[in-house]
């Protein structure tokens, strides 16, 4: 399994953001690939093929990746390699990660298994011992969607496979908010049994709870989650009211950001939507788009994976 430990020094009374660094083999692989992509990719593929047939041990592949790196340094000079690597990394510092070879992917209901991994993060403080721990189920999946110019509808892909969305509307579990895990599990399994693969959480209800998302992770229901804007109440109802949404836009964005942090690690979370039958006020909508855009690093990485797909 994957285990990594990093040393972190945190000044007194302060708060910082920390990203786990990559394992070396990735470093070398990427640099190799970025230095001479066609040769690099061909050799990579060949090695994966050997690993896939059990001829080559994964560890050997990784270390040979590192050997390649040293050979390249010899051929092209360390600075060139370092330069290429820095180019690849970009200045967003987001290029740090744990490496998995052919992990079990998470699939929506009806497309495959909902494979989940336990991610466990702990922090030990020198002179104290274990200070805090956090764990979460995590599913490896890539969800893409775009508006189809021909039909105007939104098309979804999961792990590169197009998916026909069969979904249902969800208001909430109980009108008086008597929420329970048992009821969430029953309701969500029911949707899976009805052969649905998406649940849309209506903007006049709740930002659903981690228990709701947990069972959507388990049963493979993608979730379309709306923020708290509805056409009827926010500018399109009878009488027309609140054309500029809630009074306190900063409070709305604070709640939206905290909700995203609460729910963002669930593999079932597929789409954030501004509201029901209404676009939020411009300042809120723009802020949400900025907050929820794909991090620039992943834009770059799509380029790399695209180039490798082109190559393949």
């Amino acid at each position, binding site marked *: *399994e994957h*285990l*990594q430990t*990093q040393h*972190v020094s*945190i*000044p*007194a*009374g*302060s*708060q*910082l953001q*920390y*990203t*786990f660094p990559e394992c070396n083999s990735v470093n070398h*692989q990427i640099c190799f690939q970025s230095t001479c992509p066609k040769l690099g990719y061909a050799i990579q*593929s060949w090695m994966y093929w050997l690993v896939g047939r059990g001829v080559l041990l994964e560890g050997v592949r990784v270390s040979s990746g590192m050997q390649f790196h040293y050979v390249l340094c010899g051929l092209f000079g360390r600075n060139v390699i370092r330069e290429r690597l820095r180019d690849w990394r970009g200045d967003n510092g987001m290029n740090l*990660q*744990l*490496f998995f070879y052919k992990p079990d992917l998470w699939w929506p209901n009806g497309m495959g298994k909902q*494979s989940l*991994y*336990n*991610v*466990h*993060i702990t*922090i030990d*403080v*020198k002179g104290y*011992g274990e200070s*805090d*721990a956090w764990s979460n189920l*995590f599913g*490896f999946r890539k969800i893409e969607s775009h508006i189809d110019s021909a039909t105007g509808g939104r098309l979804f892909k999961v792990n*590169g496979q197009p998916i026909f969305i069969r979904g249902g509307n969800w*208001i909430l579990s109980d009108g*008086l*908010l*008597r929420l*329970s895990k048992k009821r969430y599990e029953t309701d969500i399994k029911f949707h899976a049994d009805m052969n649905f693969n998406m649940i849309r959480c209506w*903007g*006049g209800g709740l*930002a659903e*709870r981690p228990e709701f998302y947990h069972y959507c992770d388990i049963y493979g229901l993608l979730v379309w989650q709306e923020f*708290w804007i509805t056409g*009827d*109440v926010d500018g399109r*109802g009878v009488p027309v*009211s*609140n054309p500029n949404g*809630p009074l306190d836009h900063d*409070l709305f964005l*604070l*709640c*939206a950001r905290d*909700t995203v*942090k609460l729910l963002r*690690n669930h593999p079932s979370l597929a789409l954030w939507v501004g509201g029901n039958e209404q676009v939020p006020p411009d300042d809120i909508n723009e802020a949400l788009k900025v907050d929820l855009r794909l991090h620039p690093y992943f834009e770059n990485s799509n380029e*790399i*994976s695209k180039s490798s797909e082109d190559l393949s």
Partner: protein
Amino acid sequence: MAKIGTTRLDSGWLAARSTEVSHSGTQLTTTHPPSGPTSPWLNAVVPGTANGGLIDSVLATLVENKVVPDPFYGLQNEMIIDIADSGREYYTFWFFTTFQRNQHLDLNFRGINYSAEVYLNGHKKVVPKGMFRRHSLDVTDILHPDGQNLLAVLVHPPDHPGSIPPEGGQGGDHEIGKDVATQYVQGWDWMAPIRDRNTGIWDEVSVSITGPVKIIDPHLVSSFFDDYKRVYLHATTELENRSSWVAECSLNIQVTTGVEGNICLV
């Protein structure tokens, strides 16, 4: 030393209408704690009970204690006074409980509708407005050394509960839209209005014990290459050092596959 981790406060909660309680929050959590479910105090519906429910809205507690009829049957909702007619005070409620702890401790509310004042052992902390936000209060300094702590929470309804026109309609008079709260509570074509607009501690309450350094909101993202053969997991987290010295830490991440069937990891 108690083990680090999070514990739900899911037992022994009491609730009472604020206009029927003469004591202040400081008195409730020092000299005059309620002794049990005797008037005006009721047993509050709590998380982790048989139905696994979370602490609910005020109305759910009143229904549970049969103070009001269940609004989901017949026209019984018409027999419950609406907040527009009763005023916000009528649905402003105290929630009270006790817990044992004396460590680096955070008191966590995963959802309060709509704002609240928290009293712990006589000390007051204000919980700001907003239904869809978490609150984590560092209460380490105000815990009782003997571990017996008294907690009282005064929960206020949304600022704009609105009123329900005779013809009903989608979202009543739409006033609730001025707040950052769920909007169906003013009634919709498929739903009668909720009389208290779901005021209350509507999601989990817990206490978490940590050492000097706390992990906050890790973010996990995966990226894919080579047709999903080569996959990377990016993990970012916030770390808070609440001690008065530099903390030298080992930060560990472990990823294990979920075990299936009757296989167990040793």
